[in-house]
């Protein structure tokens, strides 16, 4: 039976509302909500939809720029790509569902982010994903890795959008709370962008796509709650992805948009029908009336409450221009999808739902959206990291053995096991495939241009210093795209944090925002879309702050993109940039115990900017045969990685470096790049002219990685041997058999 007011405190709590929030809700309505209304407020006022803890801080991000066509606030960000083309992109988390059911959780994460992109009228042309798993030997890790990768591949492969890159690493802080962040990018004509607005009083509203079942009811509130005992009981709410229907939905939606039949459109994502309709009405300042009994249903006996809250996948809400209904119906039906007129746009400013004629929901849209709670939660400044004295550095006996060990960590090791399961070539536009370069490059259809993409975040740096760590994620992803030859233009983010109700977590969140803001400002890469995922903790143990950054970059000529591997013998290897190598938070320190000590790499976005400019100038001058940025594992690991693609060795002399040997070899100097060039003098001259330090370290060639410091050969290892260790890392993790 449908519960009626007065609601018990327990019922209110189950809807994720505090007593204060509930009191506010009643005050706004001037009465107690009906049961479906309570459900509607519960999702619209959830952290997931209302960004209630993060909104005050997100305002500090730079969001505008000459290329920005659409910043945050719509389903995805839009950036001018030149010649009348635009790229549309966003990143989103699906962490909690993926921990509960890794395959479907990850799959539906991909489905959701794709809808955010094609709902804007853009054809999706690339997917990336950023994954964080627990420690490699945690009993559940193999199952989670296999499930998540299988889910991402299963969905992306079937819809025919290439998964061209990503990032994956392992840390005990994710043992009870993995991260699955999915990124999608699409392309559209810049003057044909569709917005999520319920425009035009009297326009009919159509429901398009899969039928509604009881999937994921309360998914949005689940994503806003920490795990604990009892999350097992939430299991039946798992949503199942249907990539085949999504593929049809992409084609049908783009065709409907191409025929200019729509006044507004939005996918039904988290909180389904409720959030899509309320957000569309709110953006347009209009109102909506929905006839819920007309919604196509998959199960019998569904209630208005369930229909409003269901998170069944592969559904869209389309506001049709009046008089064009038949054309819309014809197109959608030709694609074999369910479609039904379910309501109309009104000018009432109210969200009204009827059930067989009876009004079951009637609330002001403003109360759901503008009046949603917004908190400036208490926060504690993150403590400053303390430097690690040279004397406290663990001893290093054999640099060659350490290099091999670093390459064999699953965080640094080859990700081929992952991307081999992703169709990264469908659509015949992938110019730099996963593993081939520091960023993925896809050509923009109908042009010579390329778009480069990279996702990055080093959470250990963020744990030590959230301001620097978050800024470094921006810097690193910008360096990645510059390595392939593209100019960074804009950012999407996915801010994964623990509970905002803990002041120390909120302190890291605020600091991370400032770090991103500073780096994005210096690099002139505004944030055009993003997502916040909070409550990433299990029984009070939070993840490291993990502000994932997705960087998008453009290049005039996709054919000019270069990879990260040394292509031939006889090139000069030059290190550009002079970021000081840091061992704090490094993977090398992790080999010897706790890595969360010392100072993380220094954040210097202005210096990084100069390196990027120099690198792009070198690309333009044809001086770059390959480029790879220094990151986890430091310069020695970067050099070794450059030898793997083509089996071309290197002899590097690092005597000119500074500091103790482990720092010179394995210190993580974010802001330096290893470039191979056929014209050493020209590259050094160009760097000098642009005021960037450039340092010739040696020639490519042979089949060994040889590193000399002060006339001592500290590393001398076969390329094939190192590569074997690097390639075995991930297969070793997933070979372990664990329970579900």
């Amino acid at each position: 039976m449908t519960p009626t007011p007065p609601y018990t405190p327990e019922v209110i709590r189950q809807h994720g509302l505090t007593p204060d929030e509930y009191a506010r809700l009643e005050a706004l309505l001037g009465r107690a909500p009906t049961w479906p209304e309570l459900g509607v407020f519960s999702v619209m006022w959830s952290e997931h939809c209302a960004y209630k803890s993060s909104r005050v801080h997100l305002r500090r991000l730079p969001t505008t720029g000459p290329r920005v066509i659409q910043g945050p606030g719509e389903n995805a960000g839009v950036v001018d790509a030149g010649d009348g083309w635009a790229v549309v992109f966003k990143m989103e988390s699906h962490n909690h569902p993926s921990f509960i059911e890794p395959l479907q959780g990850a799959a539906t994460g991909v489905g959701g982010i794709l809808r955010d992109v094609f709902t804007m009228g853009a054809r999706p042309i690339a997917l990336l994903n950023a994954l964080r798993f627990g420690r490699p030997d945690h009993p559940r890790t193999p199952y989670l890795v296999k499930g998540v990768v299988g889910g991402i591949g299963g969905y992306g492969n079937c819809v025919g959008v290439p998964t061209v890159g990503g990032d994956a690493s392992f840390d005990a802080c994710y043992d009870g709370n993995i991260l699955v962040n999915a990124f999608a990018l699409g392309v559209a004509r810049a003057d044909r962008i569709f917005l999520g607005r319920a425009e035009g009083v009297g326009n009919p509203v159509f429901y398009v796509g899969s039928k509604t079942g009881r999937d994921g009811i309360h998914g949005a509130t689940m994503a806003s709650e920490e795990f604990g005992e009892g999350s097992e009981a939430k299991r039946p709410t798992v949503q199942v992805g249907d990539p085949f229907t999504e593929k049809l939905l992409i084609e049908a939606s783009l065709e409907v948009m191409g025929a200019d039949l729509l006044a507004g459109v939005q996918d039904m994502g988290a909180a389904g029908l409720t959030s899509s309709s309320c957000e569309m009405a709110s953006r347009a300042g209009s109102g909506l009336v929905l006839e819920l009994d007309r919604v196509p249903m998959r199960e019998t006996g569904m209630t208005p409450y369930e229909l409003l809250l269901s998170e069944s996948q592969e559904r869209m809400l389309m506001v049709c221009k009046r008089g064009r209904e038949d054309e819309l119906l014809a197109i959608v039906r030709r694609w074999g999808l369910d479609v039904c007129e379910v309501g109309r746009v009104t000018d009432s400013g109210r969200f009204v739902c009827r059930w067989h004629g009876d009004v079951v929901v009637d609330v002001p849209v403003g109360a759901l959206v503008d009046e949603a709670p917004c908190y400036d939660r208490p926060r504690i400044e993150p403590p400053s990291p303390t430097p690690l004295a040279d004397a406290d550095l663990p001893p290093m006996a054999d640099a060659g053995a350490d290099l091999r060990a670093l390459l064999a960590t699953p965080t640094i090791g080859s990700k081929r096991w992952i991307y081999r399961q992703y169709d990264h070539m469908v659509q015949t536009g992938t110019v730099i495939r996963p593993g081939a370069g520091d960023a993925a490059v896809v050509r923009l259809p109908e042009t010579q241009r390329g778009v480069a993409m990279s996702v990055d975040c080093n959470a250990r740096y963020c744990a030590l210093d959230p301001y620097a760590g978050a800024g470094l994620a921006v810097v690193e992803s910008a360096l990645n795209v510059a390595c392939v030859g593209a100019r960074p233009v804009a950012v999407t983010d996915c801010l994964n944090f623990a509970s905002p109700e803990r002041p120390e977590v909120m302190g890291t969140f605020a600091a991370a925002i400032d770090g991103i803001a500073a780096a994005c400002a210096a690099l002139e890469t505004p944030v055009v879309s993003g997502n916040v995922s909070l409550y990433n903790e299990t029984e009070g143990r939070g993840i490291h702050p993990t502000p994932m950054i997705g960087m998008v970059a453009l290049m005039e000529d996709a054919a000019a993109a270069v990879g990260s591997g040394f292509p031939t013998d006889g090139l000069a290897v030059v290190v550009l940039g002079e970021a000081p190598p840091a061992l704090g938070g490094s993977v090398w320190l992790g080999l010897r115990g706790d890595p969360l000590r010392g100072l993380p790499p220094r954040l210097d976005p202005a210096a990084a900017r100069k390196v990027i400019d120099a690198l792009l100038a070198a690309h333009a001058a044809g001086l770059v045969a390959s480029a790879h940025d220094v990151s986890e594992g430091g310069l020695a690991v970067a050099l070794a990685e450059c030898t793997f693609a083509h089996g071309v060795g290197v002899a590097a002399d690092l005597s000119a470096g500074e500091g103790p040997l482990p720092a010179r070899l394995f210190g993580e100097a974010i802001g330096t790049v290893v470039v191979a060039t056929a014209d050493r003098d020209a590259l050094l001259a160009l760097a000098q002219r642009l005021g960037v330090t450039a340092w010739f370290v040696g020639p490519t060639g042979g089949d060994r990685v040889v590193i000399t410091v002060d006339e001592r050969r500290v590393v001398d290892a076969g390329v094939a041997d190192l590569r074997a260790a690097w390639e075995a890392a991930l297969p070793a993790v997933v070979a372990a058999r664990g329970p579900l």
Partner: protein
Amino acid sequence: MSEGAIKGKVTVRLRPGVLDVQGKAIANALADLGFGDTEVRVGKVFEVSLDAADADAARARLAEMATGLLANPVMETFEIEVD
């Protein structure tokens, strides 16, 4: 496997209410092929030969296998039969 192996069967089905994407596609295909309106749910069957003292022991063992590996309790239920 020894000669005295027992044969059992674990049938795994999607929980009611969980979207069956295959079933949906197959029902559509059957309709297109002129089989009329049907409802289809797709499950998996694992036929397992195992060493066990008797049928009851085999049944218990199959139940453990089903919970630990063959079925995903988040989305599926299972049923066991032993010859």
